[in-house]
Structures are given as C-alpha cells and as structure tokens.
C-alpha cells in the first residue's frame, strides 16, 4: 500500500532531488541538447511545490493531476508536455483514491508511460525518457506478478530505470533535440531518461522509509 502522505512526500522529495541535480541534468542536456533540462525541471517542481499545499488533503488522483497541470504550465520545452502528461495520466489512472495497491501502482505507471509515448511518439531505443520509463514499468509489473512486495517491486523498477538510463549512452538519438546530432549523440546519457530515473528513485526512497 502506498498512502497519500507518501505520494505527497514523494513529490516533495522529487522537488528536492531535482534541485540538487539541476546542474547535473543541465550539464547532460548541454552535451546533446540545449542546456536547460535541469533548470526546466527544477522550475516545474518549484511550481508544483507552490500548488501542493492547496491539494495535499485531496485524493491522490487530484494531487497528481494538479502536479501535471503545474508542470505543463511552467516547464515548457519537451519536458513540460511529457512530464505534464505523465503526471496527468498517472492521476487519471488512480482518480479518487487515497491509497494505492500494487495493482493501482502498476496501472498508474502504465498510464503514465503510455501518455508519454502518445504525446512524444518516441519508441524504445530512441534515446529518450521512454528508455527509462518503459523498462521500469515492465519490471514493476513482472515483479508483482512474481509476488514481490511493493518495495521490492519498486526496487526492481528503479534498477531497470537506471539500467535503461545507462543504456541510452550508446544510443543514437531519434527524438528530441539530441536527434539533430545524429552520430554525435552517441556516447552521452539522455537527460530525460536521467530525470525519469531520479523521479522513480525518489518514490522508492520515500516508500522504503519507515512511515
């Protein structure tokens, strides 16, 4: 079970982690993009933090949809619509709930990644956040299918996201700004896959903490 308080704690942790990793993500984006991913995500989650107090007593669906809307109207770039859609769809998948079962979590992750794919039309291997999100979702679903508990399943999801993130290094970018580089995109880790990993990792960290 994941509680609403944990979801709220997660979002706060994400805001903190993205602030800490602002320069790192921006640096990754400088190599194959336009040097703003960390700045954008940090700005977005600051906006989320400013809106969170108004909704943190609502259901998880509302909280996540508000998060999505805040990102859409403040992040801009590719990250804005993608992460905005991710949280909007995640929220829609768990509308009205105050705690999430493992099945809810699986549905949330699947809806989120589906939203990203629909919005950005990137495929696995295009060197985008999809390369972290999709394997993570698969791993989570497989783990609960195998009977793992939430924390264990999330750990495997985060491991898969980390692996997916690292796997973007040798990839040739096909979507986003990095795709303009062609061959020269090879050898660099995708910033969006990295932020996706960090966001999932933050969820694991929060869930793993004794409540």
């Amino acid at each position, binding site marked *: 079970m994941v509680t609403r308080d944990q979801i709220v704690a997660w979002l706060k942790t994400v805001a903190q982690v993205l602030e800490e990793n602002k320069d790192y993500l*921006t640096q990754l984006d*400088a*190599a*194959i*993009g*336009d*040097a*703003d991913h960390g*700045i*954008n995500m940090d*700005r977005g989650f600051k906006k989320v933090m400013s809106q969170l107090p108004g909704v943190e007593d609502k259901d998880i669906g509302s909280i996540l949809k508000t998060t999505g809307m805040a990102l*859409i*109207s*403040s*992040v*801009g*770039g*590719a*990250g*804005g*619509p*993608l992460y905005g859609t991710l949280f909007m769809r995640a929220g829609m998948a768990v509308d009205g709930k105050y705690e999430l079962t493992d099945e809810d979590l699986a549905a949330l992750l699947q809806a989120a990644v589906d939203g990203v794919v629909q*919005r*950005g039309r990137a495929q696995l291997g295009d060197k985008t956040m999809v390369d972290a999100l999709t394997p993570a979702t698969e791993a989570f679903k497989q783990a609960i299918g195998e009977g793992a508990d939430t924390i264990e399943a999330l750990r495997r999801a985060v491991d898969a996201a980390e692996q997916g993130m690292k796997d973007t290094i040798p990839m040739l*970018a*096909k*979507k*986003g*700004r990095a*795709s*303009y*580089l*062609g061959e*020269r995109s090879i050898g660099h880790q995708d910033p969006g896959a990295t932020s996706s990993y960090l966001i999932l990792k933050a969820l694991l960290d929060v869930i793993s903490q004794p409540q």
Partner: protein
Amino acid sequence: MKKLINTPESFVKESLEGMAAAHPDMIKIHLDPNFVYRADAPVQGKVAIISGGGSGHEPMHVGFVGMGMLDAACPGEVFTSPTPDQMLEAAKVVQGGAGVLYIVKNYSGDVMNFEMAADLARTEGIQVANILIDDDVAVKDSLYTQGRRGVGTTVLAEKICGAAAERGYDLKKVADLCRRVNINGRSMGMALTSCIVPAKGTPTFDLAEDEMEIGIGIHGEPGRERMKLKPADEITEMLALSIIEDPAYTRIVREWDDEKGEWVDVELVDPPFQPGDKVLAFVNSMGGTPVAELYVVYRKLAEICEKKGLQIVRSLVGAYITSLEMQGCSITLLKMDDEMLELWDAPVKTPGLRWGV
C-alpha cells in the same frame, strides 16, 4: 557571464517590459502567462498569426509582432518552448473570428506544447491550424527522427503569412501559404563562439580559439561538424552549397484535419533548388556577429548564387533569429514566387522589421 541583465530569472520579463515601453504604438504585453500582442488586437475578421518559442532568439518572435506580421508571440524561458497556457491565452486575446495560425518551429518541445494549445483552443471554439517550420539542412534527412529544426525560414514565413492575413486570406489559405514558404526555404548556420544561457551561467559548449562549429542550431546545440576556423568565403561556401545542393527532403508532419476532426500525418516534400529559381537571400547574425561581417558573407553568397543560376530577388541581412550573444551566422535561401514576392514587399511595422509604413 557578461550580460546586461539583472538576474537570469527576471531577464525575459524585464526584456518584454522594456520592449513594450519602447514600442507602445506597435505592441502590448501580457504577463503571466507571458505574450506580446499587437497594440490594435484583435483585428476583426483577420486570421490571427501567432508564433512563439524559447526566448534568446530576439528579435524573433516577440520583435515581429505588429501590423503585417504576427498578432502575438509567446516567449518561453531562454531556449525553452513556451507553455500551452500562454499560446491559448494569446489566441483568445488576438483572434478576430477568422481563426488562428500557429507557426511552430520543429523542436519536440515546441511541437508538443503548440499541439496541446491547439487542442485547448479548439475546445474554446477557436479554429486553429498548426504549421511546422523545419528548414535546417544541417540535420540530415530522416523519416524516423525528429527531423529538421526550424530556423531562418521562420522569420520569412512570419512576414509573408502576416502580410497575407492582413490582406484577408482565410485560415486555410494562410496555412497553405505557410506550408509552401516552409518547403521552399532552407537554412544552415555556424558558430564562432558559444552562447551562455543566463540560468546556466557558463558557455553551452567550448570552442577552441581556432575552431568553429558548422551546422549549429539556434540553441547552441552542437552542429554537424567541428572544424578549424576558415576564411569567411570558405564558410559561406560550405553553408551555401549545403543548402543549394540539398536534395529533395521528405518528412511526415502532424497537422490537424478539420474535416476528420483529428491530427493526421501529412507527408511533405521540399523540392530542391533549380537553376533559374528566384530566391530571397537571408544572411543572419547569431547575435554577436556585427552586420559588417554579414556583408562579407553576403558578398560570397551572391557570387555563389549567380554561379549556380539562382537569381537573388530580395535580400535580408541582419540579426533576426539569434542565439543570445553567440557569434556566427546563418544563411537562408527561400525560393520565391510572385505571390510570395508581393507579400514580402507589403508593409510591415514591428519593432524588429519595418518598411512601407
């Protein structure tokens, strides 16, 4: 970082405020969400032309708002696409009942945000067409990637479509024209130095004292190739030949189908240049290169065009689509037909481009 700004956070807003203060006869600004719009908006019965994109490319787009060009421009943070709420709000303020054309540069962020905005605007009963500009030949052909970036042709499309809207073209005709300008325009740029994104504070990339980057994007995205600095004539030749000898370019873009009521994939093909073509030659500064150097480039470009049988019928030389204070230039060639020529010459009155009035 050496810039005439107060803080990175306040830069975009303060620049907009200064622009509004300097040109009250042409433009107004709306803050939060940010957009610049025509002082006399909405113009009833006229298609509204709206563009936007990350800041840092001024005068594009905010400096092209005014009579004969854009009705509104939505500036994002530096080098970051604006958000759908800006584009939606701008559409609501400037639309005059004849629909809205969003002119969108082909970056995944811009494309996605403008698509979301169009969806939202339609739910408010506003007719919207999104037309992509993707003219940067530095990006190699491909059907399976993001495709080419939108660069110099954007400025020309905004001018030409702005004139068409001013003359009473309906939304479909303006959108068709915009698509036609796009497939007839090709660009390529290069950088001598990196720019510095204010929020980052350090150069986006490092170029040695004797190096340059060919095929650079307008956000300091690394280009096609890094090489030793060359004389202006050789640089011009590299850019011009990449443009002139670029073969037909095919890609699939997503456009809204009004009849079907959904987004559809459309295949578009840029025809290559042919001897005998009439062209508009546009030599653009990346921001830090002064106009005297642009003319050195133009000189060689004119020579090459002549050799290749392209007849330059109009020229534009200056800093119009920039990348902050980056030094370097880009070249755009746009094949002109009589209608485009007449629309190009039509009066325009914006902070960044003005003639005839």
